[in-house]
């Protein structure tokens, strides 16, 4: 009992110490979002507020929960933490509200660049940026005597040298798991080759093109230097390979850069050799073969104005500039918050922004294209069909889905 009291008192003292300004809310706040460290921090920040209950549901499966959880009236979730891909589903279903009035009232600490505006209305408040970029083992590259690759062609050449010199059998890693991950790697490469997913101004697919074929060709070449199980490797499995010292070169999410060497079971060689750089280009292009992302929070439409206000206040509190004083928080992400000074782990994402990386398309029908890519490209990666056939299959699958959802006639 005594111990409990001590713990409670010290917890309160810590909370009082960290929250320099009091956050008072008067209505329920309920947040659904992804589970990576930066979002955990935001969730915990919202829970510092007192006066009403703040609940969070931070899970990998947030995407299948947020739309149904916000469609009811009143909505179960008063806020969903989203990225540029997942906000589209919420806007398509019209379940989030414009935030202009709340920004005017409570958003003094927000930077204007944090506001996601669609048609002049603020629909979300971004707090971090993300991109996939190169991570590599500097010790291995030193051993073969090459610079960190700037292009995918360089990456292939380096991989060949590493294999030929017997350092590693499969030196390249990649989140090529059939489904979302594989589709995302295609998007990167396709944009790097200068492709665009849709015919200008329409929902007609446009991937069965030279850029598409080149993108698949490069992915196939890379996969020859990957663990043979690559079609089942998502980001987590790829990072496990990296941490175990089995791979030396990979295109990986910036949001995972900081935890790359801190997880359990990382070998000393990986700890000392780990390095990051900007995203690579491909095929002589100047646009990086990567996409730029933001993560931010939204407020549900089908909740009372009091709940919306409480949600806005709590989440603004969670991303207040004072948070950036904490070194541990700062390394978790590339924050878009005022007062953030980049850490070493942020180099890759900043480089991606500087190189004018294409943002992930925020189009109503992009989700369907992403699903079609994820389902139809694995045949090509296994060598079962040609690139042309695979891309034709993607377009056919996409068209069937887009017709169902009313994007195509």
């Amino acid at each position, binding site marked *: 009992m005594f111990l409990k009291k001590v713990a409670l008192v010290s917890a309160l003292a810590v909370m009082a110490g960290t929250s320099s300004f009091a956050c008072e809310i008067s209505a329920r706040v309920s947040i659904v979002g992804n589970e990576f460290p930066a979002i955990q921090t935001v969730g915990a920040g919202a829970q510092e507020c007192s006066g009403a209950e703040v609940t969070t549901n931070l899970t990998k499966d947030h995407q299948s929960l947020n739309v149904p959880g916000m469609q009811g009236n009143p909505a179960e979730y008063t806020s969903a933490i989203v990225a540029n891909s997942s906000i589209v589903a919420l806007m398509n279903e019209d379940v989030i509200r414009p935030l202009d009035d709340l920004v005017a009232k409570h958003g003094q600490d927000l930077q204007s660049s944090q506001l996601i505006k669609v048609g002049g209305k603020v629909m979300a408040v971004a707090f971090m940026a993300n991109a996939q970029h190169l991570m590599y083992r500097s010790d291995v590259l030193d051993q073969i005597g090459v610079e960190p690759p700037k292009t995918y062609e360089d990456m292939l050449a380096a991989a060949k040298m590493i294999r030929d010199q017997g350092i590693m059998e499969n030196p390249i890693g990649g989140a090529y798991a059939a489904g979302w991950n594989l589709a995302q790697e295609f998007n990167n490469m396709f944009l790097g080759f200068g492709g665009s997913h849709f015919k200008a101004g329409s929902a007609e697919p446009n991937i069965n093109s030279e850029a598409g074929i080149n993108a698949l060709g490069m992915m196939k070449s890379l996969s020859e230097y990957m663990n043979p199980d690559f079609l089942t490797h998502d980001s987590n499995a790829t990072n496990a390979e990296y941490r175990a010292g089995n791979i030396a070169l990979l295109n990986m999410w910036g949001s995972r850069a900081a935890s790359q060497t801190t997880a359990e079971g990382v070998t000393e060689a990986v700890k000392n050799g780990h390095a990051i750089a900007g995203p690579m280009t491909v095929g002589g292009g100047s646009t990086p073969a990567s996409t730029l992302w933001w993560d931010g929070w939204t407020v549900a439409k089908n909740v009372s104005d009091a709940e919306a206000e409480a949600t806005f206040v709590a989440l603004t509190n969670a991303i207040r500039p004072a948070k950036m004083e904490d070194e541990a928080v700062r390394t978790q992400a590339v924050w878009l918050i005022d007062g953030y000074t980049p850490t070493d782990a942020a180099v890759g994402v900043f480089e991606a922004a500087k190189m004018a990386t294409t943002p992930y398309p925020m189009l109503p029908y992009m989700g369907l294209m992403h699903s079609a890519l994820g389902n139809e490209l694995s045949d090509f990666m296994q060598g079962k069909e040609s690139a042309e056939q695979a891309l034709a299959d993607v377009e056919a699958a996409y068209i069937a889905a887009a017709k*169902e959802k009313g994007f195509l006639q």
Partner: protein
Amino acid sequence: MRHSTFFWFFLPTAAAMLLFIAFPILSVVMQSIYAPHSAVLIEVETCTPLVGCTMETTVDQEATAALRASEPLGRFVGLDIFFDRGHLAVSEVAGMWRDTATWSGFVEGLSNLPFYRAMAFTLTFTFVVTPAVIIFGLLIALAVNSLHAWLKGVVIFFSLLPFVVTPLIGALVLFWMIDSRGILGTALQWLVSDPDLSLKASTGLMWISLIVYGIWHAAPFAFVIFYAGLQTLPMDQIEAAEIDGATRLQRIRYVVIPHLMPLVTFVALIQLMDNFRVFEPIVGFNAAAHATSISWFIFNDLGGETRQLSSASASSVLTIIGVSILLLPVLVRTWNDFKGKT
């Protein structure tokens, strides 16, 4: 039984069946013949961090809200979704029938369509796993039944374990074991001395792994049913057969199996249904690149960033139809037996 007694006796069951079986099926059928309204798209200025403002397409919410209010069910599409490429792919199949000269070309074309590819795996899985489960279940039951009494409890407990383990967890355990760095994967590489052998990269080996998993998981179910059946064996018949000089094999063939036949039908029914809806191992094994099923389609349609409810509903209706077709022979047989008895 008087009709009114029967009526009151049956009413709660009928109400529950209506509520939990008939209405959901009706709802799924409705959702499969209605699709979302045509999207009203507009170009608006979109501003995002690090990029600035660009013109992007988005859904016109006011116009869409008006459409939704006027026709809340959505757009009537009839059987269009059943016939589209994601399902029966009627026009694609017709086109291939016209354009391909050889049977092998036609089959290859079919295997490129998601539905037919999924059916190829699902039916292979169903028709290999179901009989294998029955045979293994029977063998285990016979073996356990002939054990010494004090050993039986322990053996039954351990034989039941695969069925007790949650399917997804069981699949995940096996998935990590067959990884090229897992115990079974490495053992296999060593056995055939091929360091590049990967169970997860080969469609054939993945199918075998899934089928082995299916048998491993369901055999205890058949075992426990058959074991219960064995406790009711007519001992006088067995003894009579023994006196007549029947061997153990002959006793099993002519006395035990006929006695267990109704249970075999029962296990076959349940297994056909379960195996046709194969799902957990595909997810657990991360096997979508090699093997899919209609149940996996539903999961995939609902799990994407843009949910496809109509497509998922159409897949559900196709599952119901598929299960009905599979069960038809068994059901007809049961009905005939029933009529023969009355």
